[in-house]
């Protein structure tokens, strides 16, 4: 278990230009504290790369590579292979990619890299839209969310489709390790990062990253929103290892989705009917979770 007093004082990501209250800085910073200085970071086009690698103000004190939007998985493969071919075995290669760069344009490269079993850690920080280009929807945008290209209107309740399940896509690859996490649960995240250090092969963490700018909440509410996502069942914390899924947090009763939705501008337009749609989707997801992963593990 990770203990705060054992965490390094060194900062490997600082001085970045993310919006106040963004979960993204916490994720990169904590991940690198766990992995340490012999880590190479790959960053596709995204908020993460935009706010951390603007020449001449570089924000990583580990080597990093800013990359094509679609290629994170493949570039990790290449780094890992290049190190292996030169006999280097004590270096972590880490991908930090957004939901769009992972679940949309980068899914092919990620699938290829995971299928090949290459040795890397891949973090998908999920702010549930293309934030860097101004809040357009991705396949991980939740149903009902207002984005700049899935706007609500007289004939639209916002994003039409529920969020794609990336965690299960990774499980379908029989990946050595996959987890979901949240920037609002730093211990849980750091412990998961810690696990990735000792495992060989592809490791994948899908971490929720609340975005004050794109979701529309005050910058001091990031942790609260992240927690509410889990407490309302709109997000969950889980791990896949040795062929089994473990739920890290199982709320006894899920809080009403309204508690989560109401705090965010992107859901403000919703009415009772559309909130019902969201509730039903959440409930059906949780039925699956309980049947497949909670009950079967008992």
């Amino acid at each position, binding site marked *: 278990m990770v203990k705060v007093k054992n965490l390094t004082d060194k900062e490997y990501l600082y001085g970045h230009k993310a919006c106040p209250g963004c979960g993204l800085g916490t994720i990169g910073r904590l991940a690198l504290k766990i992995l340490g*200085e*012999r880590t*190479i970071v*790959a960053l596709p086009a995204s908020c993460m*790369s*935009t706010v951390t*690698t*603007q*020449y*001449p103000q*570089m924000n*990583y*004190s*580990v*080597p*990093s*590579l*800013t*990359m*094509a939007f*679609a*290629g994170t*998985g*493949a*570039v*990790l*493969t*290449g*780094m*890992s*292979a*290049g*190190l*292996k*071919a*030169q006999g*280097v075995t004590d*270096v972590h*290669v880490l991908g930090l990619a957004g939901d769009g760069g992972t679940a949309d344009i980068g899914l*092919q*490269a990620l*699938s*290829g890299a995971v*299928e*090949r079993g290459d040795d890397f850690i891949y973090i998908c920080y999920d702010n549930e839209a293309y934030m860097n280009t101004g809040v357009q929807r991705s396949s991980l945008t939740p149903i009902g969310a207002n984005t700049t290209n899935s706007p609500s209107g007289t004939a639209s309740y916002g994003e039409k489709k529920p969020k794609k399940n990336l965690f299960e896509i990774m499980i379908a690859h029989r990946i050595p390790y996959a987890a979901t996490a949240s920037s609002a649960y730093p211990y849980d995240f750091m412990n998961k990062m810690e696990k990735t250090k000792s495992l060989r092969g592809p490791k994948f963490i899908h971490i929720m990253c609340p975005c004050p700018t794109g979701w529309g909440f005050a910058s001091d509410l990031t942790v609260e929103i992240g927690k509410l996502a889990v407490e309302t069942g709109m997000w969950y914390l889980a791990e896949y290892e040795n062929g089994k899924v473990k739920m890290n947090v199982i709320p006894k009763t899920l809080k009403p989705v309204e508690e989560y939705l109401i705090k965010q501008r992107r859901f403000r337009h919703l009415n009772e009917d559309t909130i019902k749609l969201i509730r039903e989707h959440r409930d059906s997801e949780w039925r699956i979770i309980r049947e497949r992963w909670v009950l079967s593990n008992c």
Partner: protein
Amino acid sequence: MINKSKSSNLDFLNGDEAVAYGAKLCRPHVIPVYPITPQTIVVERISEFVANKLMDCEYIHVESEHSAMCAAMGASLVGARAFTATSSQGLAYMHEMLHYVSGSRFPIVMMNANRTLAAPWNIFGDQRDSLAQRDTGWIQVYVENGQEALDMIIQAYAIAEDDRVYTPVMVNIDGFVNTHTYELVDIPQQNDVDEFLPPFKSKNAIDFNHPRSFCMTASTEWNMEFRYQQQQAMDNAKKVIEEVDKKFGDKFGRYYGGLVEEYRCADAEVILVGMGSIIGTSRIVVDKMRDMGLKVGLVKLRFYRPFPVEYFKGLSNRVKAMGIIDRDISFGYEGAVASDIKSALASSGFCSKVINFIAGIAGRDITKEYIEEMYNKLFGLTQGHDEKELQFIGLRW
């Protein structure tokens, strides 16, 4: 099939196999590669080399050409020597990555089997695929046969990895006509290649003692300076290419002439300029016409980027007419090679004595007769005949 244990170094290889041997001799650490006709034999031979421990490298079955170039870039970032090969649709598919690699100055070498692009679908050769990548910042060389392909893979690393260059190199070899044609190829000895091309110590790779960010965002305040440096590197490459050619020739006995090679141009009245496999056929036609007393010459344009602009500037006062063969056309204008040469000639006022021949599209043969026809049109021009500036050769109607 891999031919084992021979007393002689000569082997009967097709162009793709020659490329595979060239790559093997360079000891790349990482080869991410995706198959496409007519490059597939390269992929197959290298995988056989690896499967039989004749080659020690990380051979990666990537799931696309875009990923092939991403992986090559990742490998280069950590200081590894990377090789890949592609063609046509595959080259187009990696287009985005070509810019990333050259812009962040990774000295990767790639073979491209020249093939046309869809649509209409066709797997045969022309040079549309690589010419369309002109502005990606890659050095582009075009070879005439399998031997030159093998030799240029080796030279390509020496050029790309030179401190003054640090720019990726694309070795272009005509699809089928070269990739699938068997010739006697001299395979250099490994220890000679090792001497010529020592292990790669990249200056543009990660160093944990001095962590750097690569390929980062450069704002308007800085971006142009990065581009200027790329242009400088290309200019430097001109000299490096000549040096490497000399060094290679001294060691292996084969000199290629650097940016261009002239064939019987000394007293030529009319010359043809071309790239790739067409040169072989043209040499035969030149010899035949020379035997007939006709003063014809041939210029083999080897490097398309960096472009030998100084050479072409000097050519205008040596000859009376010039034909430029393009195995591609930039629709709405003319062949890309012709445009470049003409712009070099512009100040000389010589352009009225230039014909751009569009030929050999999508594998259509450029026969000896066609080449002779081109020379005759050039003679016609010198005698005051009217000739169109742009002509399709071998068209059905």
